[in-house]
């Protein structure tokens, strides 16, 4: 855990992201593309994205309390954050990831 670093400078912390989708739907592809873009723009080099397809692993939905799809879960840094939707609103995604102050 990079507790001290993330506490001192949250922006410098490592981001561990997990994107839950159900199959290769247009929405899930769009969400992944959007996420990739946002991460490249704002978190270059300090993020990892794990894509979980619930069609293949339905039992994983319960653990993170997944309801809506697609859902992006920020597992690190803590606290856990969830962003649902196709992530097309970049500002909202950044707010959700604590990369930008809520306005």
């Amino acid at each position, binding site marked *: 855990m990079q507790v001290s670093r993330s506490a001192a400078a949250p922006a410098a912390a490592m981001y561990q992201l997990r994107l*839950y989708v*159900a199959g290769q739907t247009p*929405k899930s592809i769009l*969400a992944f593309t*959007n996420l990739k873009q946002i991460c490249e723009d704002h978190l270059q080099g300090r993020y990892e994205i794990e894509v979980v397809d*619930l*069609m293949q692993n*339905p*039992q994983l*939905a*319960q653990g993170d*309390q*997944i*309801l*809506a*799809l*697609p*859902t992006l879960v920020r597992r690190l840094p803590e*606290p*856990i*954050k*969830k*962003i*649902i*939707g*196709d*992530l*097309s*609103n970049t500002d*909202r*995604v950044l*707010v*959700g990831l604590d990369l930008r102050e809520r306005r």
Partner: protein
Amino acid sequence: MLFGEPGVLMTFEENAEEIASDVASLGFDLPELVRSGKLAVDYVRVERAEIEETGEYDLEGLFVRLDYAIRTVGAKRVVLDTIESLFAGLKDDGILRSELRRLFRWLKDKGVTAVITGERGNGLLTKQGLEEYVSDAVILLDHRVHDQVSTRRLRVVKYRGSHHGTNEYPFLIDANGISVLPVSSMALAHSAPLERISAGLSGVDGMLGGKGFYRGSTVLVTGTAGTGKTSLAAHFLDAACRRGERCLCFLFEESPKQLIRNMRSIGVDLEPWIAAGLLQFHADRPSRYGLETHLVTMHQVVADFNPTITVIDPITNLMTVGTYMDVQAMLTRMIDHLKTLNITAMLTSLAPGQTDIERTETMISSLMDTWIVLANDEVAGHHRRGLHVLKSRGMSHSNERREFVLTDSGFTLLDADGLRESADLGGPRLHEGDVRHAGV
């Protein structure tokens, strides 16, 4: 689960442990059902503060979870407990609505029976108006307080493709779960057995054509305070137990222990019958719950104990929890039920004063087959107890008013000349004229 169909419980309010401990008090063992693979519990928690919404989404995740749970146990039944709490967790009502509609459609296509609970909204059946487009059947539960006494009621609002009862039915939640009691059929189609059973006192039997009550008939005993209504009932119970009949006694005034002690003082010991399992008391404060609930409880106790004799002592105490009309309606249903089961019932009723008992009891008495009136008159500085049979359908009965005394050896009718005619106590002396001895 009783029907052997596995089920899925998806709860949106309580987590699995909470719900398991809550329903344990209703007699369900959720953890055991989960272990044996009959039930899958999935707790869905939506925390608005944790969630940021951006762009299009759907509730496919919910579908996936439900589908997974259904497949895991092979569920035929699904319960979604307060799915409306999603509306508090997610902002986009439009998406939610269309997704829920899709969900219900999907459940139907899956061939599972789904029960969806929701809270009642203001002027609507559910807060979000879900019922309008999704459900094949809507059951409305209600908790009403009337005169400080609450009754839970249940009503089937809609049930597609069936003739459903439209009435409100009271229901009860206890250790056996929920029991619902339909209003009994008011059709008058009871059988009319010819068998006669003893009142427990040969003197009283004698006044009833010498043979006592008809089996399955309803006997009303009225009298002012202290006229010996309960004593008469105790003799009736005692005699029935001697015959080996199962007797159930509802008490709304005394506790069973008080009653047993008091009846011992007139030489009737009911305790052995309890030990023998022939007699059961069911004591309740009338104000404990509403009339409907009393009715449900009584139905349930009758069903559990399966008696041939039932005593309700006294019915008048029920008046404290309902209006006269309500009590009458409730008793009608109770008597109706007892008659249907061919149970002989004795009901005692406290007459309010020395006057006009006949008028005050008219409404209930019309339901009664036999009506015995006890009175306490003052004659020359002494109270003299009297008993007469006001009516007894289908038999020749005495029109005489007989004096009786309550002694430590029981309820004893006196002859017209004041001599003790018979004593019914001890020993299996059940037939009229078994013992006659004079002198006090």
